[in-house]
């Protein structure tokens, strides 16, 4: 990480790889903006209430082609409700859902034809064989008769079900049942695939396979993935949305999330440590926290990374440098930050500010 940071600030290199990447991304996003029809799904001001309980509160987002959107949230945050509304299993209390140009309420059939949905519990008819079930799903999704067999075969191949085609769904293990559920969701080659916790109950190998499958699906579909397994999000998603108490509290690129995870502190380990004040007087250091007699946490501003400077000085002064690493927040920390009280505290601050402004006006 230190190397990476150092190279970013290397003046000799006029265009680093990272910058090139950013430029490329900008170009791509411009292209995307030009082609509005690339937006597979757009959700505007979606709300859903159950009596007095507001499960989904004014959520807006969109999904592009070739993208895996991760939907994160603690239990009961409204993830599943949001997905049920998007797939037409629940009617929205307010808001608009547009799927591939079709409004979900006005032209439900065309909109639903473009969606494949795997609910939390796979919707299986356990008394049927895998082949029977999948060909029923193919018919249900109005695939032409001549193409039904091919569609079933393809879905089975993609989900690794070729060998269990003649077995009863009831007799399959949970992992295989989950795969049948995924096969059902992709059988009609929908533009959008919505998977609600697809890797629950699978063994580690199957989880890897399913993740690979999700990445593969994202090549020509848009995927929405709901989960509370955080590493899964980091591995498979392009964009992350965190939902808490029905509200969208975070929505950004996974790259930005990685940046956010890079925090503004360095852990420094010195065998012959100088005094705290001496450390504090170093360039770009805002604060020093003594962890043990030999280890310190140094805070610095985001723009300036003092790592190189510190290494230099430590070497010159024989401080006995044995550790120098940027501290990294885990996704878990960010998740907890966003979904626990702190966000709400921020919001109240904001509203107080607004009130102040209002009073001043």
């Amino acid at each position: 990480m230190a190397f990476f940071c150092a190279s970013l600030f290397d003046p000799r290199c006029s265009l680093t790889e990272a910058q090139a990447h950013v430029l490329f991304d900008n170009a791509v996003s411009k292209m995307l903006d030009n082609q509005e029809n690339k937006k597979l799904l757009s959700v505007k001001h979606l709300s859903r209430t159950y009596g007095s309980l507001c499960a989904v509160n004014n959520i807006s987002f969109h999904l592009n082609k070739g993208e895996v959107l991760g939907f994160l949230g603690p239990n009961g945050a409204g993830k599943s409700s949001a997905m049920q509304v998007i797939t037409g299993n629940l009617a929205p209390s307010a808001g608009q859902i547009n799927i591939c140009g079709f409004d979900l309420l006005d032209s439900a059939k065309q909109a639903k034809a473009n969606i494949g949905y795997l609910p939390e519990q796979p919707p299986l008819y356990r008394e049927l064989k895998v082949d029977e079930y999948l060909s029923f799903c193919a018919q249900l999704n109005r695939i032409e008769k001549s193409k039904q067999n091919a569609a079933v075969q393809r879905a089975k191949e993609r989900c690794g079900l070729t060998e269990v085609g003649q077995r009863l769904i009831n007799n399959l293990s949970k992992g295989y049942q989950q795969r049948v559920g995924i096969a059902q969701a992709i059988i009609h080659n929908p533009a959008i695939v919505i998977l609600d916790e697809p890797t629950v109950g699978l063994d580690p190998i199957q989880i890897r396979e399913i993740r690979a499958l999700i990445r593969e699906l994202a090549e020509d579909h848009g995927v929405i993935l709901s989960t509370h397994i955080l590493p899964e999000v980091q591995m498979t998603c392009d964009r992350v949305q965190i939902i808490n108490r029905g509200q969208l509290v975070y929505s950004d690129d996974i790259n930005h999330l990685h940046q956010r995870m890079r925090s503004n502190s360095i852990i420094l380990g010195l065998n012959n440590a100088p005094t705290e004040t001496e450390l504090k007087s170093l360039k770009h250091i805002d604060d020093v926290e003594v962890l043990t007699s030999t280890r310190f946490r140094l805070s610095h501003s985001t723009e300036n990374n003092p790592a190189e400077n510190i290494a230099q000085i430590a070497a010159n002064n024989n401080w006995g440098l044995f550790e120098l690493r940027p501290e990294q927040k885990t996704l878990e920390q960010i998740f907890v930050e966003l979904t626990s009280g702190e966000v709400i505290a921020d919001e109240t601050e904001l509203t107080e500010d607004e009130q102040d402004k209002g009073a001043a006006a």
Partner: protein
Amino acid sequence: MIFTLARRELRSLFLSPLAWAILAIVQFITAYLFLSQLQEFLLIQSKLAAIENAPGVTELVIVPLYGSAAFIMMLVTPLLTMRLISEERRNKSLALLLSAPISMTEIIIGKYLGMLGFAAIMIFMMTLMPLSLYFAGSLDSGLLFTIVLGISLLLAAFISIGLYMSSLTAQPTIAAMSTFGILLMLWIIDWAGNKADAAASGLLEYISMLRHFEAFTKGIFSSSDFVYYILFISLFLILSIRRLDSDRLQR
């Protein structure tokens, strides 16, 4: 699309032992009734020959057979229809249908037709017995036709109630119990009307399913009875569609 759903429904029904057990038991009981009725007819046949305009085998064997069959079907229908929607709701497999590009109406009618398919098989199996009498003599074909039509309509009406009750709950047993309660109530509702005032009793008689079935057993095809059943079925199908739709709207 509707037929895809209907076929799946019928197939799932035959994959469970329940459908086979019901078919076997209904067939066994009706066969027993048929044979005992036939034996009785053979005993009195010589006496009947002396009477002018005596009732024939159709009136004396087939009409009572279908009358009893109607009652048996009232007992059996709740068991058949109880799982239609309630079990899908319990297994959470309803999401498959709701997120597929099909309408609520198609879902309900598909399921209804699947169940009608089973009813048709049940009635056909039973009708084979009277038809076998054609080998020995002749029957009143018109009467046989109206009575088969009558019992088909009656069973179709039973199923529509069963479907609606199943859409109300996630517990198949509750669906079965309430279906049975309503069927029995509609069967006997005209009993109360007999001694009450004429207008009320007329209304109760009109509601009673048995009254409308009786006309068919006399060989009368009256359009008002036919319309009664059609209205009855449509009412409960529409209620089921609305009920499934309201699932989506609020929970």
